[in-house]
């Protein structure tokens, strides 16, 4: 739990400092950094936390206590959800007080919310992977995945070399027009669905 709170505080403090020091002129990098920090919440606290459980055989310890597997999973998923909601909410508040054009504000909001949704999605998948395969095996798979992920920009460059501007414009247009009132319930439903899968695996 400490990892989540620590990481959440880190994001909040870091973005606030960057916001104050950089001002409005560097809003774009700040928004980009914030989104990446949200996504990294999965690979930081989730993996640190699970590594800790693995090191101390935490689940074996919990196994002998009167607590259901579903309660453990619920606590983990709940904690991530709360942390993401606080972080995303804070960042949206931070950027909403900036002088951002209405059209760009849609983009910023979408990007931050998308990062939050991505964090929830990856966190849920990570827990499913860890509960099914064990931390060590899953961490190895994730590392291999990251190595492969390094090729993605190269592939994008190769296939969209002539249409890079159009591709970026399409992505931005998509982000501007996402209907978050519809997407947020969908994301939460998906997250809950993945949580139930994780509970079934853990049980």
């Amino acid at each position: 739990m400490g990892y989540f709170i620590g990481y959440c505080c880190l994001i909040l403090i870091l973005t606030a400092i960057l916001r104050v020091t950089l001002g409005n002129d560097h809003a774009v990098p700040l928004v980009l950094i914030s989104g990446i920090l949200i996504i990294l919440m999965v690979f930081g606290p989730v993996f640190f936390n699970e590594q800790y459980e693995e090191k101390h055989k935490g689940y074996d310890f919990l196994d002998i206590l009167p607590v259901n597997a579903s309660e453990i999973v619920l606590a983990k998923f709940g904690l991530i959800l709360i942390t993401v909601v606080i972080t995303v909410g804070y960042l949206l508040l931070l950027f909403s007080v900036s002088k951002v054009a209405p059209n760009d504000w849609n983009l910023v909001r979408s990007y931050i919310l998308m990062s939050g949704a991505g964090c929830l999605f990856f966190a849920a998948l990570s827990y499913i992977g860890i509960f099914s395969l064990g931390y060590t095996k899953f961490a190895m798979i994730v590392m291999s995945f990251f190595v492969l992920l390094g090729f993605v920009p190269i592939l994008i460059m190769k296939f969209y070399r002539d249409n890079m501007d159009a591709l970026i414009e399409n992505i931005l247009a998509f982000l501007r027009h996402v209907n978050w009132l519809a997407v947020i319930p969908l994301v939460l439903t998906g997250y809950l669905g993945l949580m139930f899968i994780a509970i079934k695996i853990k049980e």
Partner: protein
Amino acid sequence: MDETENILEFKNVQKKYKGFALDVMSLNLPQGYILGLIGPNGAGKTTTIKILMNMVKRDRGEVRLFGLDPQRNPKQIKNRVGYLGEEQHFYGNKTVAWTGNFVSTFYDNWDTNMFQSLLTSFQISRTKKTRELSKGMKVRFSLALALSHHPELLILDEPTAGLDPVIRREVLELLRKKSKNEGKSVIISSHITDDIMRTADLVTFLIEGKIVLTSEKDELLSNWKKIHYKKGILDTAIVKSLKRHKDHAFGSSGVTDRYLEIKDSLVQGITEGVVKIENVNLDDILISLVKGA
């Protein structure tokens, strides 16, 4: 054995692994008794216990602990059970006090005063980190955690493995006291038969996943004897029934599991000095059961 209510019932329980199958037809434990589970390594003792604790899911069969199915009511059951495993896992960077506080939040019936008093009597420092505890201290600490919520049943899986004789004796004495004075039931598994000999009222032998013998300990020790005799003295039927039969230069010997039944037919031989009866211990019985006739 008195007609006491069974707090534990196993019926036709099966659990299969690759190369091993646990097949427990029947196993019961009346309230207030200490049941010793004896068997060689890999006999299925830990699997049996883990099924009780819902740490392993059975493939088929019925298990009832306090009348509840551990698979359906794990939380309720664990609230009433104190468990001590062969290995003790704690968050190593946390202190004894933190761990006690953490564990206390899970139990409905946690007794902080009892926990503190057990720590004091076990001489465990509250400020010590759990990774700094020795093996013996970890067992004592686990026992303090297992006892501080007033469990009705204590389940101990090889609790004395790796302990020095002083701590071993201390742990076994404590169990004996808890059962005698507070009427707590205990299940203790061990391949160290001396532990079972000292504590158990009932003994169950588990070999290759199957229960081969269950009995009251005293009855078992009364029925199992080693017979030394001169050739031709004993009835052929008795000789054939002896386990681990051996011929020596001075006679023969073997182990019987129905001494009380054949006792009368041995009296004359005993009087003449051609038959000698020797007590056996649980080790001898285990070896006889493992190696067969």
